[in-house]
């Protein structure tokens, strides 16, 4: 059963009709192939026109679509011989951040991702992708490990943000995020981060202080959620759509501002309509970006990464 977003209702109706007609045919009724074809064309063109002009708020919904491929899907699809690693060596393992080693097209790499889970049980297990300090400390540990053994780092970011909890604060959530950003900036190995869904504030940048940052076409990357921004600046969470517009959080916006390096187009109707193709396309893009970076030594990588981030905000007016 496909999950449709609110603004996709007309498409959902058409696709429902098609399904119904096909069932009639299967049941031995009249042949409606022509009608089905006509409706299918209509649905397709409607999908095309809808997705060609998604508003930032609609993109936020696509970015959070429950069927959208998650970090685990990208790891399963792109990384062979994946060996998950756990723990911050101090307090716990945080399943909101998954990490481990594996091979990307033959090359040994370190992989990190924020995982939201895809059913109630796994969502609870992964804390809906909202990491606690242990998650960021695990990320830091694995980035440092990658640095020691020359493994490029690949991260897949999809999080609403760091978990806002009492215990998280008590154990130094802010410090853990700061250290994780630092570890990314300091890594003497190539680091490619991809914002695959929602890039939520500090919890996202903690895993994305990278040489190259890729954003999926309908991903969002923002300093605050549209809802949070609306409730603070407009004093009304219902203004989320207006806030999404103002925050300039789409992949196109971030590319124009020079805050990300590449935008990966998604299949028509979003990554979830063809997860396999999306994952493969991202693999190709990562391979292209990684190739020139593996030639560089650690000091050069670090120096260029610093230069890149030091420029952010200095220029680049939309």
């Amino acid at each position: 059963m496909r999950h449709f977003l609110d603004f996709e209702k007309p498409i959902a109706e058409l696709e429902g009709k098609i399904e119904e007609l096909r069932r009639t045919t299967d049941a031995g009724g009249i042949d409606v192939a022509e009608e089905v074809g006509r409706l299918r064309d209509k649905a397709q063109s409607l999908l095309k026109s809808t997705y060609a002009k998604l508003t930032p708020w609609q993109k936020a919904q696509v970015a959070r679509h429950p069927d959208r491929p998650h970090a685990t899907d990208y790891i399963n699809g792109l990384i062979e011989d994946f060996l998950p690693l756990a723990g911050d060596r101090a307090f716990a393992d945080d399943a909101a951040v998954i990490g481990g080693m594996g091979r990307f097209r033959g090359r040994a790499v370190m992989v990190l991702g924020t995982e939201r889970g895809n059913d109630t049980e796994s969502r609870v297990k992964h804390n809906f992708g909202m990491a606690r300090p242990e998650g960021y400390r695990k990320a830091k540990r694995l980035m440092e490990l990658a640095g020691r053994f020359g493994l490029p780092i690949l991260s897949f970011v999809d999080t609403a943000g760091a978990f806002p909890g009492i215990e998280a604060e008590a154990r130094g959530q802010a410090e853990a995020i700061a250290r994780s950003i630092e570890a990314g900036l300091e890594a003497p190995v190539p680091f490619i981060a991809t914002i695959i869904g929602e890039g939520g504030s500090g919890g996202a940048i903690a895993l994305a202080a990278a040489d190259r940052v890729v954003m999926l076409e309908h991903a969002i990357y923002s300093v605050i959620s549209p809802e949070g921004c609306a409730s603070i600046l407009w004093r009304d969470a219902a203004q989320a759509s207006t806030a999404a517009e103002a925050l300039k959080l789409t992949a196109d916006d971030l590319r124009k501002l020079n805050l990300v390096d590449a935008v990966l187009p998604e299949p028509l109707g979003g990554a979830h309509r063809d997860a396999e193709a999306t994952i493969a396309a991202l693999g190709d893009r990562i391979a292209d970006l990684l190739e020139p970076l593996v030639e560089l030594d650690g000091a050069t990588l670090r120096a260029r990464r610093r230069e890149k981030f030091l420029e952010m905000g200095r220029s680049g007016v939309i």
Partner: protein
Amino acid sequence: MNWISDWALPKISGLFKREVPENLWHKCPACEQMIFRRDLEAALHVCPHCGHHMRISAVRRLECTLDPGFSRIELPRAPADPLRFRDQRRYTERLKEAQAKSAMDDAVAVAHGTIEGQRAVVAAMEFAFMGGSMGAGVGEAIVTAAKLAVLQDAPLIVFTASGGARMQEGAISLMQMPRTVIATRLVKEAGLPFIVVMCDPTTGGVTASFAMLGDIHIAEPGALIGFAGARVIEQTVREKLPEGFQRAEYLLEHGILDLVVKRSEMRATLARVIGLLRVPLVEAATAPAAEVPALPAPEEPTEQPAQA
């Protein structure tokens, strides 16, 4: 315009006006006691009744930290309003208003000088400037302060006071987190101390970047310090927050701070920290040693000596 509004009303309200100017007294927001304005100034805006540390301006902070004769530096200007952001008001309007109110370009003031004779670069955040929020201007200021510290071979001290990222600069403000983290690396790689003094409040993206990467973490008593806002946490976990949650003393207890230091002792403490980190050996205090009185001769034991 008539005689009532021009003449009678001012006369009548004059009858009820207090004898003293409005700003001669200040009410402590914590204990609500009245404090004589001049006493408050002398006490560095710490309530003499309850010890509550009130927020002070960035400029005042520089004045009470550095020795007289320090120089404030001009900071590079960041592009104003890169997103053309508008909520209920334009960002440019908010900026102008904050600039007029605080006489600052953005939420950080940077100066170099000495603290009890030891060289230092100090960056102080201005909470009154849009909640001390961090956009490209603040990022630029922290980077500039770090570079200045390296250039002058001086420690960098940052007084933080910030509600977090500046939403009006969207993802640009988010990128100031890695940017300011790089600033801390520049200072540390030059072998210089990076000291953070967290003032009320220090939250969000500022806490989760340069503020938490100090060699030494100091906070003022009672300062609110954290990542997420209390309201967000309460709504998420649906629990009552513990007493003193996210206050300086709570963070000290949880191992996140080195010291909680009263404002009146901050200068001396910073001087001690810098001295211990930067002056490996002081002349053995030979001269004063002679003046140290010798131990008094042991008195006659009045009791049986304790067994060893």
